[in-house]
């Protein structure tokens, strides 16, 4: 299905990048996260264009359904919603920007340089069935490990975020106001 750069691809990638840029530039954290979710949706669409249905849906389910919500909750819990009272970009942001740009340049340059024109082969038969059998046969060990990892992460996150009994933390230095 993919020969040349399709119009659909251009639109989706534009949406994706735009969302990412917005997430980078907006002041309001919640807006940032919403834009981020736009980006994530765009990425999911890109996956679909790459015939990776399962990955795409997984992307939507995990990122938009869970991670975005999680981030939003975190923002609300840390009272980060609304315009922050302090400058929202760190000092010496210029340097960072330069670094990011440099890395982008490097990558693009490498990409453009290193690929001879290759058209895509036939759409790979990535049916859910094949993925499932692969998960259960070839990738069973990684699967188990990921399962354990997720469990541990879940418990760990709960324990970390659990308010420790008694003194609810000494407030050291108030955020920002320096």
């Amino acid at each position: 299905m993919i020969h040349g750069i399709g119009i659909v691809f251009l639109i989706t990638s534009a949406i994706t990048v735009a969302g990412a840029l917005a997430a980078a530039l907006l002041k309001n954290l919640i807006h940032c996260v919403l834009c981020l979710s736009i980006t994530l949706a765009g990425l999911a669409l890109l996956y679909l264009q790459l015939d990776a249905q399962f990955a795409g849906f997984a992307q939507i389910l995990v990122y938009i359904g869970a991670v975005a919500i999680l981030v939003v909750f975190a923002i609300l819990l840390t009272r980060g919603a609304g315009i922050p009272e302090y400058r929202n970009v760190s000092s010496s942001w210029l340097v960072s920007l330069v670094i990011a740009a440099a890395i982008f340049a490097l990558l693009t340059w490498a990409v453009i340089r290193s690929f001879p024109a290759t058209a895509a082969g036939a759409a790979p038969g990535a049916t859910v069935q094949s993925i499932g059998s692969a998960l259960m046969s070839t990738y069973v060990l990684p699967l188990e490990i990921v399962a354990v990892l997720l469990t541990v992460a879940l418990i760990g996150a709960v324990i970390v975020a659990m308010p420790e009994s008694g003194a609810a933390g000494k407030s050291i230095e108030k955020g920002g106001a320096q």
Partner: protein
Amino acid sequence: MSFIQSMDQIFITLQHWIAGLFPLWLQPAVMAILAVVAILGAFPAIFAVTTVLERKGLGRMQNRLGPNRVGPLGILQPVADGIKSLTKEDIVPFTADGLVHFLAPLVLVTAVFLGFAVLPIGRNMVLVNMDAGLFFFFAIGASVELSIFMAGWSSRNKYSLLGAMRAIAQMISYEVPLLLSSVVAVMITGSLSTTKIVEAQSGFTGIFPHWYVFTPWGFAGFILFVIAALAETNRSPFDLPEGESELVAGYFTEYSGFKFALFFLGEYLGMLSIAGFGITLFLGGWGAPFSFLGFIPSWLWFFLKLFAAISFFIWLRGTLPRLRQDQLMNFAWKFMLPMALLNLVVAGAWRFLGEGWQRWIICSVVLLAAYFLLGRTLMRHQKLGPRSYRYAE
């Protein structure tokens, strides 16, 4: 082609006929558009019918006539409502975050409509016969939460925000049992495609169909699915997010006019789609309940079942009191989740115990035992005394 089959496939033939009027290169697009339009038309209509059904049904349950002014027996009530909500002024709070406030209902409705794309309404009647259809549905359903959050947060109102938070917490908690309980059907069918799942249930022994609900794991899964679905769609007894007594109307308190209507639509469509999937997964989709009733068109069966499910929901709403937040969460994590997980295991056992009556005994016994034990442990810490009316008399 016999009359029965033609009746069964009437919409398909219609679609093909209309598409035939167009030039060849347009036909795929036209067919898709037709299907979409059909869905966009059919389900809102059902939504309208549902509203009036619900209001009248609830009225009857509460010893009052429901709406009975507009049209004969108030049949035209939804039309009136629609006109009213369209003509009302659209109020946006001053401090509200305008863009998000505007986008929220759209996102909701879009997401919900997307859900119907993989719902098999009848034989060969599914918009996209996707290989990972069920997965798609759940992914879309997950993104509904984001829209709810947008609605609650953007309207700068503590009731809205609280409602949104409650709704999201509840939906996330119940998404897990919902998924797990539907996975059993997938396990047994061996496919995530909704059409395949329905076809797997289309057989008959004697006059009785091979619906999954008629197996131990299927029954347990169905019950869990129904409960989780109630919670997912914020229907009572899980309608805390819009508990009128506590938070005015939950996350769409600050919505009015057409946006409010959209939310309303979204909610009911969500209910319809999830009910449809419940039917697809456990009640044999568009299959006939008895072999000798096969002459009735499949789509008709589907919609009959859908209405039955809806009336069940309405009945529950008229019957059950609202839960408390902690009860809700406890129930989700301490009962639903373990039961669903156990149900997975049981389904696997069913698959590997082979044919024969033993597997019926074993699976049922295991599930019943788990049900009783879990119920015991869950109920132990709640002192359920006789209800006390402190301010009565």
